[in-house]
């Protein structure tokens, strides 16, 4: 949502906003972060998420032709 030094305002969804410490990650406004006890500990990779899903589809399709 917004970024100020080590502090960021993070949208947790459904209207929940909280200040989160982002000093452990390189996060930019607009990215998804994994938050643990008030700290962002990792930036989520949307491309990886989509890739995982397409990989699953491949696995599930295999052997069903």
């Amino acid at each position: 949502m917004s970024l100020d030094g080590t502090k960021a305002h993070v949208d947790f969804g459904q209207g929940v906003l909280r200040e989160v410490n982002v000093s452990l990650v390189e996060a930019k406004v607009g990215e998804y972060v994994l938050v643990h006890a008030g700290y962002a500990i990792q930036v989520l990779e949307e491309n990886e998420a989509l890739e995982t899903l397409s990989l699953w589809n491949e696995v599930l399709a295999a052997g069903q032709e």
Partner: protein
Amino acid sequence: MADNLRFRNPELAHSIAQKIKTVAPKKGMVKFCHVCGTHEWTITHYGLRSLLPENVEVIAGPGCPVCIVPAAEIDEAVQLAQKGVVITCFGDVLRVPGSQSSLLEAKAAGADVRIVYAVSDAVEMAKSEPAKQFVFSAVGFETTAPITAVEALGDLPKNFSFLVSHRLIPPAMELLLGVGDLQIDGFIAPGHVSAIIGLKPYELFTRVYRMPTVVAGFEPNDVLMSIYMLLKQHSEHDAQLENEYSRVVKPEGNPKAIEVMKKAFTVTAGNWRGIGRLPDSALQLRPSLAQYDAREKFDVHVKEGKDINFGCECHLVIIGKIKPKECPLFMKACTPTKPVGACMVSSEGTCRVWAKNAAAQA
């Protein structure tokens, strides 16, 4: 992430479950172990065990950081609280039994014990009440330890210190492989610990122990997929390290977090409730940060405590040797409102997870 819901889509779950049946062995048991309270929650909450063939078992290892804090370290916090120090902690820690008293009981007797959402909240309290001493009970695995490290290396007020109870997951996984009659066939490795430490620490299990290991996320389909991946390896007599949770876990983990942990802590032997002493499994603040180490600052060192109450079988639940319902106290003398053992206290404890789910008790 528009596709987020796909990770818990029931139709996809059933397709994966079908796929699991095709690779599961026709005879003989297969047993996989996870080491994360949140994995146990996902498995229990979504009833994933009911989707598995009868000969595929998933057990819960020591994945609850609150449950494995030894009574002696709760006793240290209680002693400090009784001396007038303000103890701050996560909500789960409050009711963990010490040898004589939990922090909640100390609070009821007049001590100043406060729940915080984040350690930074405790630091703010210390800043606004400079006449009092504040101690934060730092409990957690590698997911939480870097947070303590950042604060310890930062600009802390003089009246603030840590009672560090951090533990490391890979040594506990290695212990499980030494428990002869557990006979684990593969590990579901914890996603959020791995987000910090990366994949390298698990290489030991595949290379030395030939143990299939899959790092998994926390949506139901993540867990089902990891079980499929483990079964596939098992059927091919393979032992690979795979990452199902690549949207969060990078091979190198979080280098910034690893660096601050190295700066702030040394690795030492540590006691685990119900397990005993494990080498290289605990973190301790470096001597240069001794002023923030409550044990040094207040000279409080409890060597031994009473970890397991009479009749409680937490020590067997913690290593996955028995299921909660096999403990004679489960849902009788030991319930979420009146827990006897640590596994019933924390929302990540196996007994607590099962207690909150009627189907798991059937």
